[in-house]
């Protein structure tokens, strides 16, 4: 049904094993097939330890699958070298973490500039884009604040702005509201909706909240390293 759309993620038979000592191996992902198209807002749900974060790390090319095929925005990730992977992460992926992971002792605007720094973007352009992104998340008045001077919700908004820094093909958010109270979580979730609706960003969101998952276009349920269900959410597909 979405075959006419541009495919961002194309995963076939992804297996991830961890080797904990020689004889013991732990298969965390047991053959994942996943397709994500441009402009989709996908929620990934599942019990703790089911392998959601592991899958997300592979999608984000932070980690390599033990077996399987993975094409990200036309690039064969399984064949890419380490040095290429960092470039892919830099330009194609925007990570948002549960624990924000803002760089300490570095103010909001400088934090947003970090991905642009690695992309080799000049100082003036970095500054201009960082300001625009801060405005987008409503944090322009906290530009020069250090992470320790910001609340959890504010930190997460800066982190989302940072994820958008190099206009990535996809945003990966691993429990972005997990450390926030429900009203702050609501605000953060609204920013994702805004990115999805207004800019047509492709977003994959891991969440433990059934309500938030229902707001997305598609809900993927994982259990013990396998996708056990895919269904439509209320969010639909933007654009």
């Amino acid at each position, binding site marked *: 049904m979405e075959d006419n759309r541009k495919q961002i993620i194309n995963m076939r038979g992804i297996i991830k094993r961890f080797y904990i000592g020689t004889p013991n191996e732990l298969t965390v992902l047991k053959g994942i097939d996943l397709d994500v198209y441009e402009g989709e807002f996908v929620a990934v749900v599942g019990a703790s330890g089911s392998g959601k974060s592991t899958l997300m*790390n592979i999608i*984000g090319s*932070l*980690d390599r699958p033990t077996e399987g095929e993975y094409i990200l925005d036309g690039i064969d990730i399984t064949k890419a070298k*380490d*040095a290429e992977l*960092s*470039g*892919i*992460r*830099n*330009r194609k*992926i925007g*990570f948002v*973490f549960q624990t924000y*992971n*803002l*760089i*300490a*002792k*570095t103010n909001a605007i400088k934090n947003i500039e*970090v*991905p642009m*720094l*690695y*992309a080799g973007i*000049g*100082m003036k352009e970095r500054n201009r884009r960082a300001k625009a992104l801060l405005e987008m998340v409503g944090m322009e008045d906290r530009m020069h604040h250090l992470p320790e001077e910001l609340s959890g919700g504010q930190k997460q908004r800066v982190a989302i702005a*940072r994820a958008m820094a*190099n206009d990535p093909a996809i945003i990966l958010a691993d429990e972005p509201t997990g450390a926030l109270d429900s009203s702050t979580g609501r605000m953060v979730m609204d920013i994702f909706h805004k990115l999805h609706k207004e800019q047509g960003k492709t977003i994959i969101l891991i969440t433990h909240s059934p309500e938030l998952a229902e707001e997305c276009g598609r809900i993927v349920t994982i259990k013990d390293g396998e996708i056990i269900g895919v269904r439509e959410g209320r969010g639909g597909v933007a654009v």
Partner: protein
Amino acid sequence: MMLGENIRLALSGLRANKMRALLTMLGIIIGIASVIAIMTVGNSLTAELNNEFASMGASNIDVMVTRKLNEEDISDSGMIYSSTSSNKEPKDSDFITEEMLEAYIEAYDDKVYALAASENVGQTQVKDGNLYANVAIRGVNLGRLYADKKEPLAGRVFSEKELAGAAKVCMVSDKFVNNMFNGDMEAALGSTVYVELGNKNYLFNIIGVYEYEQMTYYFETVAEKDIQTELYIPLKTAKNINHKSNYEEFTVIGEQGIDVNAFVTETQDFFNKYYENSKDFEIWAYSMNSYMEEINSMMGTTTLAISVIAGIALLVGGIGVMNIMLVSITERTREIGTRKALGAPNSSIRIQFIVESIVICLIGGIIGMILGILMGYGGIKLIKSTVFAVSVKSVLLSIGFSMAIGVFFGYYPANKAAKLDPIEALRYE
């Protein structure tokens, strides 16, 4: 661009942890400070000694009659001991004669600029009513005055006639004029100095005043008024008083540009021809030039030895930097993981931490350098040296060296950071 960002990052990291940064730098600071201090003092001292020697005439050759070391004076073990049999005092006839000097000048006309000779007569106090001045009476020739750079402030130096005729004339110091004539040089010129030496009295006519110069390393312990200065009389006049006609010693002032060390040997050999048959005496010639070289090389050795010790301090400092870098990287594991997730290649992480390490070492090096220069300045004031010469070489060396320490001891931790697995790093608690 990236470099500037890395330096900014390193500086803000240091600012956030000032005490730790300072303690980390301490080894580098101490190491660099001691190298700079030692090199500054050594450099200044060498420069000062060289100046001093140059003013004393480093290229001058002193020639003197010394006692021969006969075979019986040297024991089997090679030790020299004094044997009474040959411990003879030289007589006037054992000394260098006027004829020898003339032959020498003729032989080395192109190398000898002048001969300087002097004859000490004795020390005494010149009195005139309440006025007095302490003097050492010394016979000199024109070469001596030239070598000692004694130019007349007033009046003139001795004439050839006065020198040849053993005239009863003298040159006094400005200090002498201060004491005896209330500083009036014109009044001093033409006046007669009455000198009592032993049981004899002498009268000398003042024909010139020279400027007294205090020796740099000579600590004056007597009152200004009591300082003893030299009262110069013609060489022959002094020799007559001492009942001598020959020269126990003299100084050769070489022409500019001669090979002094070679000429020392030539001169010694020349005069020793006259002493071949002498049982007890021979000629010994030496020049400050060779001492200067010796002192310079000694200075160099001392500097090197202390630099080695400072090098060990720097090594320990470097290990301290490495240690703190490892701690810092462990503390910032999540930051490293985040940076990698945001697309930092390993090389960027490596450079970031190497730059941080270089910045620590460089700041330490600069603090150490400033401290070292101050310490060197203090040291120079302490030994009352007048020359303060910071060695540019040592400054460049210490900056380069501290940067090299930064690279060397920063590489391992930085590489460790670069190779961190991003997922492990992000999961790090």
